[in-house]
């Protein structure tokens, strides 16, 4: 049974201004789905639609047992305001807000769960350090802990590694992948790193709203040179060697790989 099912859903903010063609896909328990697309393709809008924070312009979005799954959300780290005088534990505790409800204080049990969540991402020792004083990678792990502390059925990550170096990116995605496997939650993540999508998802979605492009399917089938070149509008080479996916831009335009 699907956690979430989209049937011919068109995403966007205003009627008459769709940001995608009709989208049809479902998220099953334990799925790991990467979303790829150029800047402004509508990837984050698709996430917001799945999260239910904006309504689809048309089509049907349905849930298992008629209720939305419990969600854990990891936003783009740079969108947060580091002026707030919060420590890591206080940030993680916020992930309990959905379970607690309005006007109910966090209790001892919530604090213990938050400590456990921090421990699960290997950050027990920074619980009382100022959030803003942490490194970019540590902050993202704190946000993953916050997403996990609400015991989600679906983990949604919006460019979780956008400000990370390749080693930190690989470490975070490995961590998320391990946690997802251990907890049997589904994960849906947006990334600009083709190699990350290829390495950590079984299914990918290719989205470019400006060209009314949407495809979803097994990662091994969709992440190839032809489709990536068409998606990004520039020559992209994809090669698989020894179980790893190598990705680079042709004509000496730099590259990436994993």
């Amino acid at each position, binding site marked *: 049974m699907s956690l979430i099912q989209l049937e011919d859903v068109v995403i966007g903010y205003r009627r008459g201004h769709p940001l995608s063609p009709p989208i049809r896909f479902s998220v099953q328990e334990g799925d790991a789905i990467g979303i790829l697309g150029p800047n402004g393709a509508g990837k984050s809008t698709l996430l*917001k639609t799945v999260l239910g924070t904006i309504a689809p312009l048309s089509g049907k979005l349905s849930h298992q047992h008629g209720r939305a799954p419990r969600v854990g*959300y990891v936003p783009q780290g740079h969108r947060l305001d580091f*002026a707030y*005088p919060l420590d890591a534990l206080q940030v993680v505790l*916020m992930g309990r*807000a*959905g379970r607690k409800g*309005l*006007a109910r204080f966090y209790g001892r049990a919530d604090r213990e769960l938050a400590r456990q969540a921090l421990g699960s991402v290997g950050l027990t020792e920074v619980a009382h350090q100022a959030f803003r004083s942490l490194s970019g990678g540590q902050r993202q792990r704190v946000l993953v802990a916050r997403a996990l502390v609400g015991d989600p059925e679906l983990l949604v990550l919006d460019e979780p590694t956008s400000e990370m170096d390749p080693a930190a990116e690989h470490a975070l995605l490995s961590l998320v992948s391990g946690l997802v496997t251990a907890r049997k939650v589904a994960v849906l993540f947006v990334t600009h790193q083709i190699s990350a999508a290829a390495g950590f998802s079984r299914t990918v979605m290719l989205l470019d709203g400006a060209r009314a492009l949407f495809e979803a399917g097994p990662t091994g089938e969709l992440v190839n040179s032809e489709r990536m070149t068409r998606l990004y509008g520039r020559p992209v080479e994809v090669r698989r060697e020894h179980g790893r996916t190598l990705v680079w831009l042709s004509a000496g335009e730099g590259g990436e790989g994993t």
Partner: protein
Amino acid sequence: MSFWDASFLWLEPMLASLIGAGLLGYLGFFVVLRRVAFMSAALSQVSGLGVATAFWVGSFFGVSPHDETAFWFSPVTFALGFALLGAVAFTLPSRSRRVAPESVVALAYLASSALVIVVLNSPRIAQEAHEIGDLLFGNAVVVRREHLVQLAVGAVLVLAVHAVFFKDFLFTSFDHETAASLGVPVRALDLGLHASLAVAVAVSTRALGALPVFAFLVLPAGAALLFSERLKVVLVLSVAFSMVSAAVGYWLSWTWSLPTGPVMVALAALFWGLGGLKRLAGARS
């Protein structure tokens, strides 16, 4: 007559200053971190327009500003009503992509400032303009008992709401998007927070004056954020800086015959300066 011998003269204004400063010092935490300082200035102007409008409307019904007025003609009712409408207007536009929220705040600030002057120059209330000006812009030197009571009731209401919803206000302020994804009613909480700000501004402007109100909403919290990275410490320091500025400012203005509001503001700014020096010293060591 010494300052302490004259306590019967300054006790009520001092109490009003302390209550207002404490309340605004606390709310300043959200004002500074949500970057809505200009909104608080606009709410002050909008509530002032409410006061002026109350007198203008009252003039048609023979209501004198010097007498006990019916609830519906009371300046505080109009001030609260106008400020709450402002809070609603400032909360709604963020849904629209065409109108930036700052534009709506600027429109409200400018239109209210202009309309207050227009209303005060109406021949119907021209003879009351000076006294209305005191009510509009406050006068921390003399505070009427009824204004002190209104301020205390408003402060208790606002702080009670914040005691209950603090965790939710903090979450929506820090990470609106994630809060919404967890089903937290972010729009209603934004409205509640802005409404609490509107009530605080409306009841304290008449007791303290527009300038100190704006200053207490920005300077103590900004200074506290320079002194600490701990949530509880920042909140306590913000309230403390605000109340100390109010009390010491009042005493200095009495002792040296200085204008009360500006002295309070200067002291609050001093705390910010001290915070900046502390940061500078920390960066060098």
